[in-house]
């Protein structure tokens, strides 16, 4: 049986493509972007999280903890420094308040199809559908292939949001069941790309070029991260790349920086020490004026561009 690890299913999702959609967030990513807005999507494993605000200090978790040694207080057990070694999930099972919760849940194909079809009527009225996001959805390619094929039986519009760092074969397998690809373009400079995401961008750029030969419906998405991707130099590089490779036929979306991720990192605690420091810089969301200026850069070169959540 084929399972996928999914960390969130968001209904009435309105920023991930046309119409009313359900967005499925697949867990596990091949990049390690330091500004990542969905840190819970990093690891492909099911993880335990702890929300201090919900804890009622009933100590149920301590009585069942397999490690047993770390029993001073629940918050120290889940602090950055101490990582649970066992992943036995016993504490999650007994926690009554939901303070300890699991990120990630396994679904079979049919179950996920059933859940996404619950909103079929809404997709129909609004010409919406299902968006696969993550993490990197294309990592779980076998599952996704089957899943998309089934959705297509119901004529559901499908979108994949990808960072592009997967074998071309993974694209190829689902290209006929995917209506639109939302393709992230982050940093054009190879070395900077490595230092901020952990990987070179060659595979990504190649995939985008190959995709452009096969697929008419691609949206290029550029996350605007202050001082990292949102620099004049990088944006001009991106524009040149788009022009030089005749990608100007595609819509381009600029994704403003979202401060909400900071809050997420506070809750996560695990595995993101290195990332955290980027948020300590007190990065601010771009103002409307700045966003419109960025937009101008693209318009000057005759590109179709819009700012997500602003227009």
């Amino acid at each position, binding site marked *: 049986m084929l399972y996928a690890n999914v960390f969130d299913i968001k*209904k009435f999702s309105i920023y991930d493509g046309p119409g*009313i959609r359900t967005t499925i967030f697949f867990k596990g990513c091949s990049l390690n972007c330091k500004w990542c807005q969905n840190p819970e999507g990093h690891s492909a494993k099911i993880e335990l999280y702890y929300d201090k605000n*919900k804890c*009622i200090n009933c100590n*149920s978790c301590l009585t069942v903890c397999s490690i047993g040694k770390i029993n001073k207080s629940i918050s120290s057990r889940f602090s950055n420094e101490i990582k649970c070694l066992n992943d036995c999930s016993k504490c999650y099972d007994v926690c*009554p308040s939901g303070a300890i919760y699991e990120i990630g849940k396994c679904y079979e194909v049919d179950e996920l199809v059933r859940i996404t079809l619950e909103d079929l*009527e809404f997709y129909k009225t*609004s010409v*919406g559908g299902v968006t696969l996001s993550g993490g990197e959805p294309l990592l779980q390619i076998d599952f996704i292939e089957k899943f998309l094929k089934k959705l297509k039986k119901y004529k559901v519009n499908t979108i994949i949001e990808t960072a592009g760092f997967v074998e071309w074969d993974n694209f190829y397998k689902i290209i006929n069941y995917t209506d639109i690809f939302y393709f992230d373009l982050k940093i054009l400079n190879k070395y900077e790309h490595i230092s901020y995401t952990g990987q070179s961008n060659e595979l990504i750029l190649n995939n985008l070029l190959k995709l452009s030969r096969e697929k008419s419906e691609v949206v290029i998405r550029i996350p605007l991260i202050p001082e990292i991707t949102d620099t004049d130099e990088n944006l001009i590089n991106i524009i040149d790349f788009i022009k030089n490779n005749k990608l100007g036929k595609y819509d381009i979306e600029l994704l403003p920086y979202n401060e909400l991720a900071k809050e997420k990192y506070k809750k996560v605690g695990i595995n993101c020490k290195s990332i955290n420091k980027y948020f300590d810089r007190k990065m601010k969301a771009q103002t409307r004026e700045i966003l419109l200026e960025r937009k101008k850069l693209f318009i000057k070169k005759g590109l179709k561009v819009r700012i997500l959540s*602003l227009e």
Partner: protein
Amino acid sequence: MDRRIEYLKKILLANSHHKYRLDEFDGTILNKDTENLPPNVRKALAFKKAVEEMPIYIQEEELIIGGRTIFNLPKYHTREEIKESKFSNNNIYDPIFNNVYNESIDEIGDHVSDTNPPNYGKIIKNGLQWYWDFANERLNEDNLETDQANYYKSVKIVIEGVQSHIRRYVELIDKKIKEEKLLENRERELAKIRKDINYIIINPPKTFFQAVQLIYFIHTLLWVEGVCLVSLARLDQILWPLYEKDLKKGIMTEDMALEIIECFIIKLNHEVDRPNSRFTWLKGDTGQAVTIGGTKEGNMNKSGENDLTFIILKAIEELGPIDPHLHVRIMKNSDKKVWNMIIKLLSLGRANILLNYDDNIEKALEKVKIYSGQDIANYTGVGCWEQIIAGKSSYRQCGTIELLRPLEWLLYKGHNAIDKDPKRNPIIDNKYTGINLGSLDKYKTFEEFMDAYKTELRYYILMVVSNIIKTRLAYNPFISTFVDDCLDAGKDIKDGGAKYKETDLQASSLANIADSLYAIKKLVFEEKESTLKDLAKILKDNFCGYENLRQKIINKLPKYGNGFKEVDDIAKEVAEFFAGELTRYTNGWGGPFRARITGGQSYVDNIKLIGATPDGRKIGDYTSFNASPQLGCDKEGPTGIIRTVSNIDKLKFAGGFILDLKFSKDLFSTQENKEKFKNLIKTYFKLGNIQLQFTVVNSKTLREAQKHPELYKDLTVRVWGFSAYFVELPKEYQDHVIRRTELGV
């Protein structure tokens, strides 16, 4: 917004009209001659005296004039009537079985008609004098019965009253022009108003302005009669012929019509703080409902949206008033412009809008089996959410079935968990309890338990229904004049003169009962984590010492409002059982009971009389309102909520079925999102639903408003079925709005 309207809005918010009010109107019509007159004639005389003597005023810049300044009629009940009423306790309020809140009662406790609008179309067509002449003619007939004669006498008296009331305004203008130093413009304006109102004393209005002014006079005098929650019916249809005529003749422009409508709406807002309710209730709960859109009057196959529909919408956009309650009739083929305008108003945070979906509501009304097809097409929204036929219905909205209460009776052998009413007297009497069905050990399956719950619920409905049937109604000579069948038959609506006599009963806390019953199913019958007996004890102790269990219920069990089939089916079973039970009864006039799923005041106030519940709610916690999920439990977003409520057959709820959806203002930031929002609503109605209302506000804004009320004076929010100024709500109602907006999209 022009300068006049800005000024009128400013003085409205400053309550400038309050200084004309008389809190106690002394006077009596009783003397040796009148004491022996029949009660409806006496009431008509009292009405006439009131409108002839109450203070009248015209404020600077006002175009529409008039207004209620008194809140009681002169004495007209005889000593015998008052004495006798002390022995009949039919109308004594009790919080469980006879909890008709909003109804207006008179001096001897009799219920005055509420909610029913007059047939304004007919009034505009015929004019006031026609009613007097009609009654006079009937009085000359030979074979008239005494009751009919008394009715027609009362019609003549009340019409004379209205006429002399308007005449007083003519005189007031004369006086103003003579004695005050008015600006030339204003003097000309007043002279024109004088001419117009002088004309409508006798004649049917021949201009748009005259019609609006006449409607306002009658509306405001209905308040004086003691009617509460009185609606205005389908204004865009009623006023259309004269609007069109004036425009064609070139004596009015669209802008002038907008100004008149805005002046009218501001006048409606004069009444928002004094509903004629038997309890002082929340500001804004006035039932001043204006219906727009829907089928064209007289032509069922045509959509009736017209320029006036948009003028009314535009006025709401500009004024941001709390009244009128705007009932918007929309349908599959509604004009795109209407949708766009509604979305615009919602994005501005206008909270007084209720959407009624004709295609489904009309089917629900058909199922009541009393209305003619023509009348159904012409239905009007009244009160907070109800639909009736203007000028033909004598509707009553009666009481609340608190769905959690029968569960309490079941768990505590027929007793209430809380036997003291913390706020009001009298204390809930112990004799007022449910059925003692005996020990809880005997229920082996959830189905058996559910059957027992239904037994308690059936008993509860029977008790409330029998109290409603027993309530005594007051004579209503003024409103009865303008109800078609009353006038034809010579019968007050008290005596059943109206063609339709429908009564609604609402059931509240649907989400909480579904969550509670599901928790019992899961914890007691499936996981066997607790016995019914233990659970009853835990609830009685308000979960004391069982916080873990309570947390588990709240956080780990699925809840109503997320499209979770098992819980949704319980809600469906309870709601439809309630509706089915009501079809077994007729009210005191032989009319039907209609079921409604709404919350009214129950979710904050009445709920204090319910103990802890199995859904994890502790004593004193709020419940959900209307058919919405419990606060904080709608984790799946709007499509989940919609799936949950769509599971219930709305055609069984001709009285109404209200869902509230909440959104943050950010949703409306882009055109694309607005389109998505519209499609969400369209799907909601496609799935068989009938009504929808909204809260569009950010909880952050509300918290700011709590801190700095002076900066948010005109911020309006949806309460249960009307809009109110947020900063003027009691704190607990403010908190409820905040908590309900926290999970908004």
